[in-house]
């Protein structure tokens, strides 16, 4: 297992290099850079700009700039954010944590609902409950995340129970520890609902299909013939096999979750990676864009790796050793 994880991590290095190279290329193709904004600012002297240019090799050709960035990256420096006037690592680290909180809470919420709903739909196959769930899941799948956010926010304006934006209340610092957690949870409710609904709908259908397939197989017939109770057959024999494919999908779902989270973050004002990337793209803050794309990709790779490990833990047939 350790061998496998190590191999996967090594394998992700060229992938990350590719991603960062592409991103670097895209941003450098764009006409102008952040220094153009500074040049137009009469308060910034020419010396400052040339200092910036030299420090970040912005006057050098593209490949040298990229090589410099990689060299700094290896040393643990992500560069400097021109618009935040702070090292990128400092800007990003708290943001990445916030995005992670949001993603994990939606993952938990999703998994609480997927399995019971999928099992219900499979057991009531082609009955009213199943058809209702199928109809609802089409609607849930088709509602774009941003539209759902708007709808929930509109609803929340009437109830006044939930905060409408941000991650913390104004008085967050004065709360006790428990109060802080409660405040965070209150702020998490709307974005979590938005992010989970889509994946609940998709995964619920897949769970249903998997369970039906498992229930139709020979070993279930065998178990029935041996006189096992229906509950035991369902929860011990069928369910275990039906869950495995979903765990594989979990890795892919993580990618969609990150993308979806970015948009919801921007709408709701959640201080996460997506929001900072958008700002960085708008202001052509080169190193900040690079840092956040890198961070997003690392989160994604970790998610995929986690799902592979989880699969190995759950399914004894899967062994990554040779």
């Amino acid at each position, binding site marked *: 297992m350790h061998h496998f994880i190590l191999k996967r991590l090594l394998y*992700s290095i*060229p*992938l990350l290099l*590719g*991603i960062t190279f*592409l*991103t670097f*290329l*895209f*941003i*450098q*193709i*764009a*006409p*102008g850079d952040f220094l153009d904004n500074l040049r137009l600012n009469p308060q910034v002297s020419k010396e400052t700009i040339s200092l910036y240019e030299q420090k970040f090799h912005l006057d050098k050709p593209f490949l040298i700039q990229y090589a410099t960035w990689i060299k700094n990256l290896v040393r643990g420096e992500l560069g400097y954010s021109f618009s935040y006037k702070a090292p990128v690592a400092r800007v990003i680290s708290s943001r990445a944590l916030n995005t992670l909180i949001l993603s994990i809470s939606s993952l938990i919420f999703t998994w609480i609902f997927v399995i019971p709903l999928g099992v219900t739909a499979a057991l009531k196959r082609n009955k009213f409950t199943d058809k209702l769930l199928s109809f609802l899941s*089409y*609607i849930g*799948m*088709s*509602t*774009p995340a*941003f*539209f759902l956010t*708007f*709808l929930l*926010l*509109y609803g929340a*304006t009437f109830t006044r129970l939930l905060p*409408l*934006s941000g991650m913390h209340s104004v008085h967050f610092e004065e709360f006790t520890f428990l109060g802080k957690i409660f405040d965070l949870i209150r702020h998490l409710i709307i974005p979590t609902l938005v992010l989970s609904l889509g994946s609940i709908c998709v995964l619920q*259908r*897949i769970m*249903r*299909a998997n369970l*039906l*397939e498992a229930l139709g197989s020979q070993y279930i017939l065998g178990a029935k013939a041996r006189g096992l109770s229906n509950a035991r057959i369902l929860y011990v024999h069928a369910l275990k096999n039906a869950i495995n494919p979903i765990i594989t999908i979990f890795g892919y779902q993580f*990618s*969609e979750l*990150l*993308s*979806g989270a*970015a*948009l919801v973050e*921007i*709408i709701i004002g959640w201080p996460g990676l*997506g929001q900072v*990337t*958008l700002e960085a*793209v*708008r202001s*052509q803050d080169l190193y900040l*864009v690079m840092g*956040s*794309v890198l961070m*997003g*990709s690392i*989160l*994604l*790779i970790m998610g*995929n790796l986690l799902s592979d490990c989880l699969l190995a833990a759950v399914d004894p047939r899967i062994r990554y050793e040779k």
Partner: protein
Amino acid sequence: MFKQLIKNKSALTSLIILAVLYLLVIFAPFFAPYSYDEDDVLYANAPPAKIRIFSLKNKQFTPFVYAQKFTINNYYQRVYYEDTSQIFPIRFFHKGSRYKFLFIASDRHFFGVRNGKIFIFGADYRGRDLFSRILYGGRISLSVGIIASLISLSFGLLIGGIAGYFGGKIDNLLMRFCEIMMITPAFYLMLALRASFPPSIDSTQAYFLIVVILSFIGWASIARIIRGMSLSLRENEFVYAAKACGLNHFQIIMRHILPFTFSYALVAFVLSIPAYIGGEAALSLLGLGIQEPQASWGNLLSGAMGIVNIRLFPWILIPGVFILVAVACFYILGDVLRDALDPKRKIL
């Protein structure tokens, strides 16, 4: 296959809904009572007009709307009310503003009112008719999906076909590139791609840019699956026969390998449209796509970014309903198609 689609009730319904949507959108100048940029400051943020069937008091027995007037309240906000003394009967094939559509210049609109305004979905902050803007905006939103899907599918087919057919180093190189595309979170990739173009561009350029960005993101996952199919297809005897007949590699891929992936490609085409419609909407919503005064379903929703606007003018959320309906129809259609083409997977 088409027969199976028609037989399935939900597929038929979605086909009809999509056909109606596309017709409305293609003939937008005719169906919309106003053009997309016709504004009237007297109707800024006017709520949807209530359509009444008849009124005994006014001896009016065809559908009509009352005039919308406003007063200013203590917060200096406009409060619209219906002026029941003034009625505007709805006239079909009404003569309104002139428009040009496919070389035909006309001034007939499907419906409209004389001497007043009719906003069946309300108006935006500049007093532009939301219904008209939705129809014009749909031209962009609904076509972007199809075009981007077609482009990414062709790329996916070609690259996947080549990778699977040749195998070896070419396969390795192309698939590693695919993996890079797939491992980057789509939204971040979209933003990074958008960053390589100047922030403010006009709408025609933005349209092409969106198509390019969306198809650039989408081709990789299709290519991977096509590659798998092509890898097994190339072992078939007819491929050897084609080789023996002296066809070149390109001809073999185009004529003897890719046609076998048709049913997968068709399903992938239909099922990837929703993601592209959503992608366009997301970019335009953030102000990185289609710009004002042009409309698209995404940028129409950008007014909803402020919570105050949603609360005070909830009708600005209507374009989202259109996105939802279009996307749901494509999903249902794609699922039914997949079942029709692959009977083994009936259960899903």
